[in-house]
């Protein structure tokens, strides 16, 4: 039997007011679940996943980003809500012994590239400028929708960065860096433009904790794979491919996320425990002081999964008949295919002159005239200086 549900939009201040009407006995879930469902305050999910490294030996950074992409897609965020930026192509790289694949586990167990992947920014397009423009929304007007972050004030955004970094900066493609101050300012711009409800920032680089030290906007939660002064290490090489496949932190993060399904109730405190020092060698860090809610009440699926707002209605809509384009009067002239190489036409083609140039010798004649007039006026005695 059809169920009619009405969601009521609520202010973020009054989170506890939820109206739920259920018209039939078989209601959706129980009251508790519904209450939890609405308590987070977001209505849509976005993800911005960035890999900033180029060259074959940085295979692991692309594998990191693709494994987060795969988890996020599996948990429900559609491609239209994911902005994936990969600075280099590893799958179809000529050094890849298995083209069109990117593996995360050795012995080629798991292909995180898959068959259904859409990369929005690739190769040289992954620059600091493009990344900041995507975050703040200040893109040129002709940018296609798939390359924009069209979030609003009810969006939960997941931002994942990986690459090579240092104390206070992240390196983009070996040629430029983004500093932690710039990143914090970008998030403040997003906050002032009401472009996010809550934001989860994960970074897997060396000294990653330095990147979230300068945040000052509300509702930000950050995780990093290592503290200042520590290096993030890579996990395991694959001898057939010849490079390290993943970084440790993201490897254990992927294993943790593989156990999550769209309806699971795991919360952020479990995410903070991913990859302890014994497994990661570096100490992962996190920052929750800017976040309004208690991390224990934040579900993993609030950021990694997707909320789909579905409204089922019993109304009927009458569709009008399709407008058949009127063909108009039949053309008298007959169309034909064009000659592909009309040799005689080409030979007799006159190239169109776009800029007008004065005829040959005109400038020379003009200068001669000026000189003659000058010497006529001021006497011929000056001429002897020239000849």
């Amino acid at each position, binding site marked *: 039997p059809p169920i009619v549900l009405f969601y009521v939009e609520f202010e973020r201040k009054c989170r506890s007011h939820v109206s739920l009407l259920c018209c039939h006995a078989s209601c959706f879930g129980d009251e508790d679940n519904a209450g939890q469902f609405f308590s987070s305050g977001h209505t849509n999910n976005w993800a911005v996943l960035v890999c900033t490294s*180029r*060259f074959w030996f940085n295979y692991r950074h692309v594998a990191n980003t693709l494994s987060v992409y795969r988890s996020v897609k599996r948990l429900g965020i559609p*491609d*239209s809500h994911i902005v994936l930026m990969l600075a280099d*192509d590893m*799958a*179809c790289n000529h050094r890849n012994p*298995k*083209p*069109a*694949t990117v593996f995360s586990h050795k012995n080629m167990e798991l292909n995180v*590239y*898959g*068959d*259904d*992947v*859409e*990369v*929005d920014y*690739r*190769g*040289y*397009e992954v620059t600091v400028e493009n990344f900041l423009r995507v975050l703040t929304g200040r893109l*040129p007007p*002709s*940018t*296609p*929708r*798939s*390359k924009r972050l069209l979030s609003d004030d009810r969006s939960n955004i997941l931002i994942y960065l990986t690459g090579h970094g240092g104390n206070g900066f992240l390196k983009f*493609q*070996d*040629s430029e860096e983004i500093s932690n101050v710039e990143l914090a300012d970008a998030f403040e711009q997003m906050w002032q433009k009401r472009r996010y409800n809550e934001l989860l920032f994960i970074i897997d680089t060396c000294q990653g904790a330095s990147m979230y030290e300068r945040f000052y906007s509300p509702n930000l939660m950050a995780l990093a794979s290592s503290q200042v002064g520590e290096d993030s290490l890579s996990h395991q090489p694959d001898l057939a491919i010849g490079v390290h496949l993943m970084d440790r932190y993201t490897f254990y993060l992927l294993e943790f996320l593989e156990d999550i399904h769209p309806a699971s109730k795991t919360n952020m405190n479990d995410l903070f425990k991913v990859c302890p020092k014994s497994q990661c060698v570096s100490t992962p860090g996190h920052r929750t002081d800017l976040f309004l809610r208690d991390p224990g009440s934040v579900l993993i699926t609030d950021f990694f999964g997707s909320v789909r707002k579905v409204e089922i209605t019993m109304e009927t809509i009458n569709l009008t008949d*399709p*407008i058949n*384009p009127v*063909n108009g009067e*039949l*053309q008298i*002239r*007959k*169309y*034909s*295919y*064009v*000659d*592909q*190489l*009309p*040799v005689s036409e*080409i*030979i007799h*083609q006159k*190239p169109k002159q776009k800029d007008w140039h004065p005829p040959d010798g005109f400038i020379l004649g003009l200068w001669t005239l000026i000189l003659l007039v000058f010497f006529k006026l001021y006497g011929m005695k000056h001429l002897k200086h020239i000849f």
Partner: protein
Amino acid sequence: CATGINMQAAHWLAPRMTRQCGNDFQEELVIRPLHSGDIYASFQFRTVWETDFMRGNKVSHYRLFPKSLGQVISKFSVRELHISFTQGYWRTMQWGQPFQPSPPGAELWVWFQDSVTDVDGTWKELTNVLSGIFCASLNFIDSTNTVQPSASFKPLGIGNETDHRFLRYATLPREIVCTENLTPWKKLLPCGSKAGLAVLLKSEKLFHSSFHSQAVHIRPVCQDWQCKTTSWELRQTLNVVFDLHNSAQGKREWSLFKMFSRTLTEACPLASSSKIYIDITDNPQGEQFEVSPATPLLSQAVVLGDRRTFSVYDLTQQITFGTVRSLNLLIRWKSSEGDMLRPLLHAERYVAGYGLQTGEIHTLMYNNHPYRSFPVLLLDSVPWYLRLYIHTLTVTSKGKDNKPSYIHYQPSKDRLRPHLLEMLVQLPPNSVTEVTVQFERALLKWTEYTPDPNHGFYVGSSVISSLVPSIVAMDTNSTRERPLFSSFFPCKEESSYFVRVYTEPLLVNLPTPDFSMPYNVICLTCTVVAVGYGSLYNLLTRSFQIEEPSPGLAKRIANIIRKMRGVPPL
């Protein structure tokens, strides 16, 4: 990247209709075994829609034609659109001529309708929208790599006027093709990758090949033989050449499963025709290779100047799939003798010279016909940072100078537009024609280098368009029912057929600065300034005072006692 809206749920239940409200979809696969043991597979998917996008007609009801492309055509007033993504280089001498030629990287050429007032602005917006649809970096197409050919790339569709002001051509030789380009391409098909021939398009096998090219061609075609009204045709083509050693482990035995790791179980229900053609012209009695399961259907078609015979498998007939309900074609080679027909037109290009200052581009065009000569149109688009010296342009055939009957040269402007050179050259029979031009490399500004400048910079392929004499009479009747692969290029005369050959792209090294130089200079300058200025400043502004050496211990105790007594110290 945008996905097409597929409203296919209802169509699965509908019986097969040949024409559904003016939409027609056909799919075919042509398999041509090559003499070197490799195998060439060419997919063609054609959607024809009887509607009129011209003159701003509003179209809102889409069925088989993908909505994303339909909206692009009507918004940007496009008359023809051809875009291709290729990985690898087509080896003409080993593989023959392809059914649809394409250069390595990405290539885009568009004819706009004559109602467009600002062609350059529309071109820029179109490239941005297409980069979103196909997940490619087409937004890097700007005025520095766009040219307006004056004689090449005539429209492939119908049309009466050809004003080259409405044509734009650009290539990105560096563009990488991978699964993320194949995914949106497959989503444009009416059946997606769920039924029909598109089931075979698995990226892990397609990209593990010597050559992979996928293209989208949109053009207006004649609706019927009278040709008074137009319909819009969308052709999606995918050409792939599988290597004997990579995909078949050296055994000359090919099957659909070996090539694509899938077999066929049904045709696309929305297709009016779904066929597989296997080229058996070199195998009339079955002595070279054997094809199983056998099929009684044979078809002949004139394609690329030659009459070829094909075994046909019609997937719309249930009997093709046999009792196992799955079709896995097997082609087993028995003998490896026999020579392939030498292609009549073939081209090469390379850079000569040494050092990072000057160089020379050589383009060689081979005419392998024993007694006929034919004209070729060479289009060269060289980026502005290779400064061509056109006064050193030479065209020689058989050692003698060969003067082109038409030259169009547009010089480059630094950072604004590239060089464009178009020449109509007559190639004498059985000869090699060499076109050479010297160039000088420019020094770019340090912000203009790519993040990996030591890789080099690419120069796009040259395009050679030609009317090559054909061995058999070509079919000039364009509206007769023909297999899709033979009706790509329109044919106007019987004795020759149109062919386009692409040369290799060039990779040139530009003089690259040391990018650590600014850091080194700042360190050195600051050190020199600090040491030099600091020392000078101290010398000028410090004053020196004489200081008494500190007294010994006994004297210090005596001084303390004298201080207590109130007596001046020693």
